[in-house]
């Protein structure tokens, strides 16, 4: 029931009381299917927007007074935007209402309103950290267990490191703390060093190279995508790395290692080993790629 103005001596009917009560327990709905400009009669009601296309609900001045409020809900697939017409609309949250979202429009004066969006479930992040950034220092090996789960199919390992001398960093998969050491790792490399490009294939290895450490104590930067390690299927690797041949960082070199671990086995972690008998210092983190939008 729209807001009523009762006068002195007027007889209040049961129907009116019931209607007013209904607005508390079953709020009056004003259903819209296209963009809409609020009117004074919308005070205290609930506006629902149902449209497959984007819509707006426009707020103008001199229709409401301080303390008035109304609810806005979007039940359509198109986003509905609470839009300032001649009135101002402020909000700490978004003014765009997604499907199944809503909130309260509260007027602080005849020309100003605040939109309070209801809490909504945040969209899933594209990358979810499954192993927080971890520092290692003077380590010959680095182990991360229990990070590959059914929550994600693909993962990315970010690692930056430096070592006392040049050698490869290599990765092996692990399951329940046991390292897969058999010669099931196969790789193809492409490399660019100044104007020279190179390529090489290396197969039936007991580990997969993910990066080369350059000169002494010079940083290298690596991102390795690990495909479906937790599935009982072949695991894919794509290691993109760049390292430096001099302490001045004036000789950057880029390498990509593509490869696989050919066993159809599920793994939950990995171990990284520094070659050459050297140790390595740096940080790493692992992220899972979201499977949903």
């Amino acid at each position: 029931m729209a807001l009523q103005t009762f006068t002195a001596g007027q007889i209040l009917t049961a129907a009116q009381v019931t209607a007013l009560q209904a607005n508390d327990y079953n709020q009056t709905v004003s259903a819209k299917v296209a963009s809409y400009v609020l009117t004074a009669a919308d005070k205290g009601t609930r506006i629902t927007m149902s449209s497959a296309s984007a819509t707006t609900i426009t707020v103008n001045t001199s229709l409401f007074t301080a303390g008035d409020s109304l609810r806005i809900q979007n039940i359509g697939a198109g986003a509905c935007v609470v839009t300032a017409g001649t009135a101002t609309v402020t909000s700490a949250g978004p003014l765009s209402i997604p499907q199944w979202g809503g909130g309260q429009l509260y007027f602080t004066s005849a020309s100003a309103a605040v939109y309070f969006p209801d809490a909504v479930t945040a969209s899933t992040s594209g990358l979810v950290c499954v192993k927080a950034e971890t520092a290692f220092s003077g380590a010959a090996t680095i182990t991360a267990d229990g990070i590959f789960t059914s929550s994600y199919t693909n993962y990315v390992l970010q690692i930056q490191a430096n070592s006392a001398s040049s050698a490869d960093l290599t990765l092996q998969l692990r399951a329940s703390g046991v390292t897969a050491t058999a010669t099931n790792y196969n790789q193809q490399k492409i490399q660019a060093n100044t104007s020279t490009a190179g390529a090489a294939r290396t197969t039936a290895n007991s580990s997969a190279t993910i990066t080369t450490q350059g000169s002494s104590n010079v940083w290298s930067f690596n991102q390795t995508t690990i495909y479906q390690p937790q599935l009982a299927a072949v695991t894919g690797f794509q290691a993109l790395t760049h390292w430096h041949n001099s302490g001045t960082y004036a000789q950057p070199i880029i390498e990509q290692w593509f490869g696989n671990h050919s066993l159809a086995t599920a793994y939950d972690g990995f171990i990284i080993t520094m070659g050459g008998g050297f140790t390595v210092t740096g940080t790493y983190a692992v992220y899972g790629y979201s499977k949903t939008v």
Partner: protein
Amino acid sequence: MNMKTNDNGIERDMTETEIEAYEIVKADLEKRAKERTKAEAAQATARQTVLTKLGLTADEAALLLD
């Protein structure tokens, strides 16, 4: 000096078993590095042989490929 590992974020000395596993990977990496160096050297030699036959420098050959 003891070999160190970062075990799920915890720095500690390697166990004997871990050292044995590490030595296997290390040896494999050294073998692969040697093979790679050998292959790269062979490739460089082959490239130089072709350049010599053609009477070109490496820079001149690179210009032809641009």
